[in-house]
């Protein structure tokens, strides 16, 4: 069984890339990892199209966990998930967790072969209920 993939979505391409670097350092190539940042015009922001592409790049049969920073990143990620075909839609979650710590924790959990739900829970333990 493949490991859960991780997608990092930040308003800032640099934050997305930096968080992804930290994840790579922790888990190497044992999980699929993709990141995206910036709006369709090249400024700070997020875009549904680029998030969909990131989900494709990180795709795993075990599912994909998305880590986001601020509001629009979450809203755009949820929209991108809804636009996936029905077969994939149920296997992608947007985690309510801080982006850097959440990505590292989720990826570490994923690298051990945990289920999507466990990966999500581990990331979300970082956020107060």
């Amino acid at each position, binding site marked *: 069984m493949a490991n859960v993939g991780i997608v990092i979505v930040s*308003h800032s391409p640099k934050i997305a890339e930096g968080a992804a670097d930290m994840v790579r350092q922790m888990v190497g190539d044992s999980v699929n990892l993709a990141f995206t940042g910036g*709006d*369709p*015009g090249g*400024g*700070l*922001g*997020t*875009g*549904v*199209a680029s998030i969909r592409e990131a989900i494709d790049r990180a795709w795993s049969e075990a599912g994909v966990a998305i880590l986001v920073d*601020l*509001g*629009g990143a979450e*809203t*755009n990620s*949820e*929209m991108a998930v809804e*636009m996936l075909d029905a077969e994939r839609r149920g296997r992608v979650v947007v985690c309510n967790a801080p982006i850097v710590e959440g990505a590292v924790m989720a990826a570490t959990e994923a690298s051990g072969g945990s289920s999507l739900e466990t990966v999500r829970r581990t990331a979300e333990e970082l956020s107060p209920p």
Partner: protein
Amino acid sequence: MTPVLLHRLILAVADEVIAHADELTELDQAVGDGDHGINMKRGFEVVRADAEATAEKPLPEALKAIGTQLVMKVGGASGPLYGTLFLALSKEIAPDASNLSAAFASAVEAVKARGKSQPGQKTMLDVLAPVQKALAEGGADLPARLPTVAARAADATIPMLATRGRASFLGERSIGHMDPGARSSALIVASVCRVLGD
């Protein structure tokens, strides 16, 4: 809905949003991340460029095309929020728009779900909900009345405390500024009414 009228509506809405991009950005600089104007302008420039082809489609398909363009091009949270408004409208509305009030009501519900928000939190919903209420009440004078309803509702966001969206990070400091999403919603409603009232 004739293609000619639909074309006029699309151009009117797009031009209104584009013309107010700087104002929307200024409002967003006060309470958000300052990108609302430029994001909305980018999205509606795409909508405007396709207006002729979009207007040839039946109304539901035209609204779907506009919603998809906004989702893909606007960026920020307003892309999926406005995109959801148009996409949800497209799912419910009759080609002759005879069920506009009911379709708009379900579209407003879809925006609430997308934004996990309710009216009273200093968002676009504070304009959309009163507009929906006025639509439900009906009346021949709606095109004349709705812009005022929308403008007053946008003004009413000034003293509100933001509890959703980026403005909520400001807490009490969000009070005293009009919500940029409320303003853009009021602009869109007013431009539609201006064409329909002609």
